[in-house]
Structure formats: structure tokens, C-alpha cells
């Protein structure tokens, strides 16, 4: 196997390197990809079309919003899949009973770690919300903010114990919120279908939202980004919680 892998890798690498001679040099603004009418349209017209200054957000949530919906579904599938593969159904029932019993936050953790996390977690969550909400004007958006928010719960679990984190965001609530995120996303699309547009055509939502058509696009993007944020936050936490405890949510990292 090793020899086969080495030969394959060398041959494939040589072929790929050979083909790279055709590529334009790095940083060439006139390369086919960078100078293509579609790429130029994204740069030149996005602000007119959507009033969103962060081009990545606009392309992500509007021009290619359909991709992004399925990307959110991929995250959802990962969470469901992990639970299906290693989740222990009986542990869930036990756990529901146990959650009621209160335990002091992080009794068995180191003081310094605990205090640091106490300071960091709220700031992190606030920052995550900012990243989601301000994704139109600065780097950020539903994924980035969602990952940060999810990370804040992971941090909580690492410092204060998983049970503590689960008490704040239980697994079933996580899945509900994750599903809700996708419903929010697809709901915007269905709404635009109901109003006579194509799926995810934010322009027809103009009738429901304040501002002009471009503003309607901007607002709709905010809604779908929030949906993405819900799903990513909760699923990342669920992935961590299950992998850290072999799916029983009890004893773990």
C-alpha cells in the first residue's frame, strides 16, 4: 500500500504540477477567473444590487444563496449523522432526568481557568452576535459568527464541565434550533415563492420589508445569515458534546 501510494502521489503530483504551467501568475488581475464578467459583476454591481459592502456576504447569501442553504444542510446532516452513529439513545433519557439536579458551576475545575472563561465567554458570545449582524459591512457572517458562538459553548464545556454547558443549551434544544435555522433559511425562500418570485428571490420581499429593493435584499440576507448562525452554533456544540463523551453525554473530556 505504501509503495502504491508513493507512486500514485508522485505521478499525480507531476501531472498536476505540469498542468500548473498554464495558470496565470499569482496576483494577476487580468486572469480569466479574475477578469470574468461574472466576477466583475460581483465587484462592480453588488453595492447597487444589494447595498451590502462585504462582497463575500452578498455573494454567499444572495447570488449563491442556494449553495449556502445546502451548506447549512451539510452541517445539519453532520450533527444528525454523528448522533445516529455514536449516540446512545438510552443515555438521552437518563440525561434528561439528571439535568434537573443542579451542580455548582465548575466545582472540579482550576480556579484560573474558570475565572478566565467566565470573563471570556460573555465577550465571545457578544462578539459572535456582532460578527453575524455586522457581516454586511465587515468580515463575518452567519458561519463565522455561528462558529464563534458554538466555540463559546465548547469553552464553557471545557472549563465548567459538559453538564453545565448542556444545562444551558441542551441537546434536543440544539437540534430544534438547528432545524429552525434551516427552516428560517428555506422559509425566506418559500416566502419569496409565495409572493411570485423564484426560490430565494429576495427582491420580491420588497413588499414586506422597509426600504427599496436593494435594501430588501440586504435585510433578507440578514435573516438567512441568522438562520445559518443558529444551525452552525448548535450543531458544532452537539458535535463536540457527542465526540467528547462517545455519544452518552455523561463522562467526557
Amino acid at each position: 500500500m505504501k509503495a502504491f501510494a508513493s507512486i500514485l502521489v508522485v505521478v499525480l503530483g507531476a501531472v498536476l504540477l505540469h498542468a500548473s504551467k498554464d495558470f496565470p501568475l499569482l496576483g494577476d488581475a487580468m486572469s480569466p477567473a479574475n477578469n470574468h464578467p461574472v466576477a466583475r459583476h460581483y465587484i462592480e454591481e453588488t453595492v447597487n444590487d444589494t447595498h451590502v459592502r462585504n462582497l463575500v456576504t452578498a455573494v454567499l447569501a444572495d447570488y449563491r444563496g442556494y449553495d449556502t442553504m445546502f451548506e447549512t444542510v451539510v452541517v445539519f446532516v453532520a450533527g444528525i449523522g454523528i448522533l445516529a452513529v455514536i449516540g446512545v439513545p438510552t443515555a438521552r433519557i437518563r440525561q434528561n432526568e439528571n439535568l434537573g439536579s443542579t451542580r455548582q458551576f465548575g466545582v472540579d475545575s482550576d480556579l484560573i481557568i474558570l475565572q478566565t472563561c467566565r470573563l471570556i465567554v460573555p465577550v465571545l458570545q457578544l462578539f459572535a452576535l456582532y460578527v453575524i449582524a455586522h457581516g454586511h459591512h465587515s468580515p463575518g457572517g452567519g458561519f463565522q459568527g455561528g462558529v464563534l458562538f458554538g466555540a463559546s459553548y465548547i469553552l464553557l464545556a471545557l472549563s465548567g464541565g459538559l453538564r453545565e454547558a448542556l444545562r444551558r443549551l441542551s441537546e434536543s434544544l440544539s437540534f430544534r434550533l438547528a432545524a429552525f435555522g434551516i427552516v428560517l433559511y428555506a422559509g425566506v425562500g418559500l416566502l419569496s415563492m409565495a409572493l411570485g418570485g423564484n426560490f430565494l428571490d429576495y427582491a420580491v420581499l420588497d413588499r414586506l420589508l422597509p426600504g427599496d429593493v436593494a435594501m430588501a435584499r440586504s435585510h433578507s440576507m440578514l435573516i438567512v445569515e441568522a438562520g445559518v448562525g443558529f444551525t452552525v452554533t448548535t450543531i458544532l456544540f452537539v458535535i463536540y458534546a457527542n465526540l467528547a463523551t462517545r455519544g452518552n453525554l455523561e463522562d467526557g473530556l
Partner: protein
Amino acid sequence: MSEQIPLLILLVPLLGAVGLGLFALRRPAAAMPVVFGALGIAVLAAIHTLLRIVDEGGSVITYNLAGWDRLPERASGKAIGIEYKIDAFNALVLVLITAVALVNALYLRARIAVECAGKEILYAVLYLLLVVGLCGMVITNDAFNLYVLLEISSLTSYALIGIGRRRAAHASFNYIITGTIGASFYLLGVGYLYMQVGTLNIGDIHEVLTASAELRASASVKVACMMIMAGLWLKMAMFPMHGWLPNAYRYAPSPSGSLMAPLVTKVMVVVMLRVMVNLFGLDYLFAELNWRPVIVGLACVAILAGSLLALAQRDLRAMLCYLIVAEVGYMVGGAWVGNEAGITGVAYHVLSDACMTFCLFLAAAAIILRTGEHRLGAFRGAFQRIPVAMTAFTVGAFSMIGLPPTCGFFSKWYLLQGGIEAGQWHYVAALLISSLVNAVLFFRIFEIALFGKIEVPETGVRDVDALPRDTWERVPAATKVGLVVAAIAVIAVGLLNRPIALWIGKALNFIEVAG
């Protein structure tokens, strides 16, 4: 409103799955009604789409997602959003996918509580999302959107396999590694194309490639084509890369196996056809590249190896899995023979192979369930003990061998015709030999079934990973319905060969822009 209906094929199962996650995480009883409801609507929407296309004389439905029309003609007329494109063949495949999933749900209903106790809702969610991924791949006209949907269907497949018993996890892990290599190769190929072309819309890429002789001659486009093909072959278990398939489908929960075996590899073949015909274009592939001898040769090896490996198996499911490997060889070879009969044959074979594989897997599942035996010995006296399942199995087997009036005969006919017209005699020979091997294989089983001694199932002649004894049951009535439907479908797709071939031909003519 009616132009929105094709999208319902995706949206209804998606919302069904998400709705289960939202409302029914602790209510296993809700799983099957939602699956039936969502897939039922999806089947109706797919049939509506097909009828509409047929009514309009084989038109192509285009749908701009997010309402972004193409740029105006003066600004190059390129697509800035994501686009769907459904021709008659795609619509047929959509009907096939949703219908197979719906009929398989009948079998699933009987097994879900046994094989995935406590995880019914999760299973149902994954099941519906797999259908979404597969349907989406068939109709999308965007190379990157294809990748995202490919990953949805892959991740759901991994989970649907890994949910099974002990060995399933290892099989699924191998599938993940192979599948990720395949998807990454595809992504890299698309990246190479994007570097040179600058767009992701399949039609637009094709246009640029057709227009520029320089690009057509460049090494990077050739490498892109190679990587995309290699990625798709990994995903469809083309022979030297088939290692993941037998174990994955064998150790998966049986409803997963009978859903994925007919659909996943076949949808990858559909994607390969789309890439060949719509993305690169046949004249690029066959005039510029000249890879035909190599690939048809590989396909011949795949056909022979798959058939012979199937012959060597003692385990019923493993045998059927290797038959899939051989069938993939049929289809890759037929596509790369490169003439109209060959490609029509491949498109037709996708439909017929899905029907017969489904029929065989479902029948095998019923037989294994009834006898508790997963080796060929299960067939002793099968005609008396399990007449319905055995009859369906016979129909599927006749189709695999290629006897009329089953669909396998007609699709093989087109493939043979394609091979003969192109003068690819080794492909023709491989097809015929493989049919003979299939005949030996199945008549051996019929011999056991007709003349084998009936015995009470022995005390567990089985390996530890097979179904536990307490799950042996009579074949549930709903499964019998499924078996009958599958067997009828095998014959119906065969009898309808003229209209189906006609529609496929029309669809191919429509998309053969440069041909």
C-alpha cells in the same frame, strides 16, 4: 406557479427532514408518516415535471435560483446565480429516485424499529436528505453546487451506513476516506477549470471551451477533465476503485443498502453523463482527448472483474454488490464508446439497472429476513417458502442476465449496438461474457431454489455481524407490495423501451450543442 413545481422535489423532502428535527425528535412514531408524505409529494412533483417536459415535446426547463437572471447579452450573457436545468432524461431520473425511495420506505417501515431502535427519527431525516442530495445533483447546472449536493448525499450515505452494526463503522470509515478523495478530486478538477474559464455554470464553461481552441489544447483543461472523471469514478466504484462498495452496502442496515445500491452509483453515472455531454462536450472528449481506448479498456476489465468476483462470493449481498461493480463498468464503457447508441444505452441502463438492482436487493433483504441465512444456501426451497420474494428475485435476475422482456435486455441491446457501431469489439465481448457469467451465477441460485433440500435454519450458521436471530420474521406485507412494484417496474421499463429511448434521444439532442 407550475414553473416552481420542479423545486418541490427538493424542498418537500428537505422540509420534511427539517420538520422532523424541529418537532419530532422524541416522537419516533412520526418518522414514517413524514417520510411517506414527503416522498409521495416529491414523486408527484417529479411525475408532473416529466409530463410537462413530454407535453412540450422534450423541452428543457431552466430555473434561476434566487431570481438572478443571466447578465444581459451586451454584458456577455453569463449566469451570475445558480441555475437548474431539467431535460427529459433528468426528469426520468428524478421520478426514478423519488419512486425508489418511496417504495423502499415500505420496506423501511417494517425494519426501522428493529434495525435502528431509538434512532428512527435520525434515520428518517438522513433518508430524506439523501434523496434531496441525489435529486439536486441530477438537475443542477452549476459545477460547484453539484459539489455541495454531492457532499450532502455522501455525508448522509456515510451516516446511513455507519448507523449499522459493528462492522458497518469500519466499512463506512473506508467509504468516507474514498468518498472524500473522490469529492476532493472533483473539486480540484473544477478548480482547474475555474482558473482557466472563470465561471462555474456548466453551460457557460462549455461555451468558453467550445470557443477557444487554445483552451481545448491546454494541459490544465485535460487535467481538469481527468480529475473530475477520477473523482466521479471513485464515487461510483469503478473497478480498481471499488474497494469501499461491497462492505459498505453489505453491512449497512438493510433498508440503507436497498436504497443506496440502486441509486447512489447510478446518480453518479448521470452526473458523469452531464459532465461529459454538457460540460466538456462530446467533441472535446472524443476529438481532442482520445482517451477512448484506455477508458473502454478499463471498463472491460471492470466488467469482467466485477462478474468474476461476484461469481466467487458465497454471501448473497456481497454477490449483488460485485454485480453493481460490473454494471458500473457497463455504463462507463458505454459512455466512453462515445456514439449516440452508446450514450443512449447508458442513460437507459441507468434507469433499468436502478430498477433491477432495487428489485434484487429488496428481494435479497426479504429472503435473508425470512430465512436468517445470508449465504446462497438461503435459497433452498425458496420458491415454496417465499414465493413473492423469489419471483421478484427471478425477474431481477432475468434482467441482470439480459433476457427479454425485462429492461436489462433492452438497455444492454443499446449498449451492444453502441459497441458494435464504434467497433469496440472487446467491449462487446466483455458485455457478452459478463451476461454469460450472470447467467451461470443466477441459474446456480435457481438450481438451489428449485432442487435444494429444505431445511429448518440451522443454529446460526452466520457471522457475528449478521442480523441477530430475534429479528427473523415473516416478510411483512408492505414489503411484498414493494417487491411486486419493483418487479413490475423492471418489466415496465423494458416494455416502454421505445418511448424511453425516444425521450432520452431527444434530451441528448437538445443538450448536444456542439455535436
